[in-house]
């Protein structure tokens, strides 16, 4: 059974802290994605990666960075957390190729609160 796991379901951090969100997939997928989801705004793409050590900015990369050292693992880093980064963070993976032609498999999400 296909699986995408995220390191935490709920996380509370203080302003200015460095935050790491981890995502692991077991499907040998080339593509991995990080989204944030806010009420009324839908899913917005932060970063994606189509290969190990490769990354591309999404629509809202400011304040975030990513790391992909191994094919199965994609990390999202908040260098200095701010309250406007309070959100639900979702990781996804898919096969390589034109993005729309392949379904994305999502993790359960991490609800991050920055106080």
């Amino acid at each position: 059974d296909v699986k995408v796991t995220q390191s935490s379901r709920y996380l509370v951090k203080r302003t200015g802290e460095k935050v790491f969100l981890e995502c692991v997939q077991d499907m040998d997928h080339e593509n991995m994605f990080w989204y944030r989801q806010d009420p009324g705004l839908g899913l917005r793409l932060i970063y994606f990666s189509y290969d190990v050590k490769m990354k591309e900015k999404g629509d809202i990369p400011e304040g975030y960075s990513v790391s992909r050292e191994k094919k199965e693992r994609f990390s999202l880093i908040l260098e200095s957390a701010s309250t406007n980064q309070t959100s639900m963070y979702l990781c996804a993976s898919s096969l390589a190729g034109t993005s729309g032609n392949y379904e994305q498999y999502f993790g359960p999400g991490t609800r991050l609160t920055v106080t």
Partner: protein
Amino acid sequence: SQKIEQNSEALNIQEGKTATLTCNYTNYSPAYLQWYRQDPGRGPVFLLLIRENEKEKRKERLKVTFDTTLKQSLFHITASQPADSATYLCALDDSYGNKLVFGAGTILRVKS
């Protein structure tokens, strides 16, 4: 500007009826359109994919249409059940084919 619009208000229907959800888009030329289901506190789950050269796709009680002239997709659930209550998201590929762009979703509530 580019936009994807789904019904912002929740759709409330009676069990057994057909639910129809709408996804309209502006200034995109997608080759693919996908629909996902999302339950509260969980990640989206893929339901159906339809290509630009396909007018209609079915899977069990689900049916999706894709009209590139109207720039619209319709998502139908026939014989709806309370278990179908969820948020439904449409997504399409951006012009460069690199990523999916998601709508904000429509909440469906099926009452018994």
